[in-house]
């Protein structure tokens, strides 16, 4: 095993510092080292998007980033989307719930993070743009219909300033 390396990452607003194996994937760092198991793993070829998180504000597939590459970065995971404890949800989460945008829920954290990135870049997307924007995230349960609906609805509520988390 190679020498371990120290990484400093700000995760959901908290600064974390750990010794890691250089080959450790960011997704395993989040899940195993930090215990943030909301980020999932669904493939080994960067296809499914279950592991999507935001790194310095942009969506990345955390199975395709090494923890050491995240050194110095700000990472946001699903756990950081809504403040814990007060029951408030991010508008995207709210919309997924409202529009039945999930079934087994396994793809959901990745979908929500990908949607967050999409809506930041394009706050008023067409259905077509949402579908293309989520192309990197696979869902086997929903047929995407209600996911797309949820993202469109979230876009609307975020534009109108409703439902911004406290």
């Amino acid at each position, binding site marked *: *095993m190679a020498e371990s390396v120290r990484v400093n990452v700000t995760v959901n607003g908290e600064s974390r510092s750990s010794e890691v194996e250089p080959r450790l994937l960011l997704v395993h760092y989040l899940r195993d080292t930090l215990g943030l198991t909301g*980020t*999932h793993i669904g493939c080994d070829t960067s296809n499914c998007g279950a592991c999507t998180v935001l790194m310095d504000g942009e969506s990345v597939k955390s199975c395709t980033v090494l923890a050491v590459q995240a050194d110095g970065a700000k990472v946001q995971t699903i756990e950081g989307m*809504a403040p814990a404890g007060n029951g408030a949800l991010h508008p995207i989460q709210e919309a997924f*719930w409202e529009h039945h945008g999930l*079934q087994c829920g396994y793809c959901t954290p990745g979908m929500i993070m990908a949607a967050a990135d999409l809506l930041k870049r394009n706050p008023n997307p067409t259905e077509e743009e949402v579908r293309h924007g989520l*192309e990197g995230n696979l869902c*086997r349960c929903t047929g*995407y219909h209600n996911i797309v609906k949820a993202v469109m609805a979230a876009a609307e509520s975020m534009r109108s300033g409703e439902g911004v988390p406290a």
Partner: protein
Amino acid sequence: MSAVTEGATGTQSGPIGRRMKRKEDPRLITGRGNYVDDISLPGMLHMALVRSDVAHARITSIDKSAAEGMEGVHAVITGEDLDVGAPLPMVWIPPGVEVKTPEHWPLARGEVNHVGDPVAAVVGSDKYGVIDAAAQIVVQYEELPAVIDPEKALEDGSPLVHDDLGTNKTHEWALGGGDMDAAMAEADVVVERRIVNHRTAGAAIEPRGCIAEWRGESVTLWTATQIPHLVRLFLAGELGVSEEKIRVIAPEVGGGFGSKLNHYAEEVLACYLSRKLGRPVKWLETRSENLAATTHGRDLIVYCKMGVKRDGTITGLHAKIVADLGAYYQLLTPFIPCFAAFVMSGCYKIPAVQTDIVGVFTNKFATDAVRGAGRPEATHAIEVMIEQAAAELGMDPLELRRKNFIPKEDFPAEVAVGVVYDSGDYHGTLDKLLEHVNLDEFRREQAELREHGVYRGIGFSTYVEICGLAPSRVVGPSGVGIQGGFWESAVVRVHPSGAATVYTGSSPHGQGHETGFAQIVAERLGIEPENVEVMHGDTDTGPFGMGTYGSRTLSVGGEAAGRAAVKVQEKAKKLAAHLLEAAPEDIELADGKYQVRGSPDKGLALADISLAAYVPENIPEGMEPGLEETSFYDPENFVWPFGAHAAIVDVDIDTGKVEVARYVAVDDCGRAINPLLIEGQVHGGIAHAIGQALFEQVVYNDEGQLITGTFVDYALPTAAELPSFETDRTETPSPVNDLGVKGVGEAGTIAATPTMVNAVVDALRPLGVSYMDMPLTPMRVWQAIQEARGAGSGPRATEQGRQTDEHGSGSAGSGPAAPAEGGES
């Protein structure tokens, strides 16, 4: 925006029928779900497997020394080291039919039979370290000839998958009724077609995984499964441990689609190694392992023959099925194709219907249930044949369907194969579909577009599915021969405060049991679903249950929950009568009150009654305290959902690319408990089937190498390839259960593949294309167009060369293929 539930805002008065948002969602949308991989135990070790990279070989040696010497490695075992009491189970023993059954051990014993066959297991302290160690295990093989094409496997002189069985034919099984010879003689036209329903993967986004923890004499196994209670029963035999010492928990399960309706080698290995090492052992499947060694589905070649009279009357339908079962059996492998036979009549009154099945071993992984399991294959064959026959007769395919539909007034209707459809209105769903699709307008538009070189097509299918598995007397040991019962269980426990907990034997993986079952029980008890908690998937907390598959959840599991709740309601009424000093028969439950009939002012809420039940100073003589009941419900019949679907597609004839412009579905799953959940199930099913129709295929090459071993090669549809779906429903209650429900989890997968194929063929018919096998990839569509053009415009084009890797790709543009008697002609 707050996270307060809006469950009470339905249009109906009671909880049943509400579009209630799901109770399970708050934890899942915030990343607080608890899937197998989210569980870590103190001292936990990790397991990795060494799998065969050849399709068929004798193992001549396994050198584990290098791996054993690596830091952090605790154990390396092979098939010779593994001492378990029984091989992996297959539970179908049809009376009077011999099914050749190879022993299937968790680790190969001397021989490997497919790529991905587990050969050795490594356990160590580090997740990455065990993978490094597995790579150091050296397995020497003496390769044997592999057989990949199931029709070639049936030929004399073919290499054998299992030498000791002396044949690659697993079994023959048939179901039918009516006089087929007379039916075909009576027909004016007999349409024949070889239809390949290719191999696919369940491809749940959560791969499989499990953790075993042995403490003293007991073991707990967390596993991503659809059938925790059955897994426990099997483990008892394999591990030689009494059943009550085993606890199996299905935590949050990230999709199943049949692929987790099984008991797998890794579950046994994790338990075995945990006992051996005294530490918890976790195994997680990689996606590559999932595509190689989690059950595949479909893989049938259907030789179909339909007899029709000039006026459109169907006289007979005969399907000869060659089923590629792979190298070993999983739980239900040889039985799955038989399921097709039960619905081979489709929605039609056909005097003679016959299905003859031959199962075949090949050097591939086992097939088993994948969403629909046999019914999509049957429906695909029937609905493709209907449109083939219509084309042959020059008749409108919808007219042909209507002419042969079982009329509404015939229900309950016994069909030729001997099963009784419970209720239906096939004209009704088709009429409703056509309210959404204006066919005349479409045909005008289609003709116009063709003038501009745009090839647009419309395809239809209607379907009936067999759900609500199952009446035990029909499918049990002396019936069809599955060694089990198919009832479901539920316990409804009302707490002193009047809130309730339901324990179901059914085990969800995305369906929304926690919401749907809460609605049913709440309605029966006169409380709100928000106050009903549904527990599932833990063999230690509820009664034995059969699990979730075959669209059985609501009609069997939900019915059991409803019946247990009715028992509770009856006791609550007796208690209310006592408290109100009235006669029990005068008590009614109305608007959440247990009241003397017609006197709402003197009513009690469930909470008043439950408190009395648990503080029993004031209960009637002879009544036991508490408010809790159990139900084991075994249905009298199956339930038979049905529907009509249409797809409109555009085909780019230069590239062969198919775009789905519209997809419209009208389904009837009986009474709706929660329309939101129904729509979700329909959407998912349609997408799954469009995936099969256009993109997905498990492909092995001639040597038995798996070509589609990752999500790069196994192409699931993404959001960008699908349209939004248009769905509608009719409601024809089932008379089989008190709820009147049927089931809808597989509807989309059953209806959508023939809809898609029919639509693409409709688009390309002017070019002379009369049929294509799935998947309708651009390459295959383009080739079909070229071949049809090359062969003139008639449907009688050349017989296609078959590629063995997909056994039966593209018979595009070909005329009726002759069914081969006893194998390849």
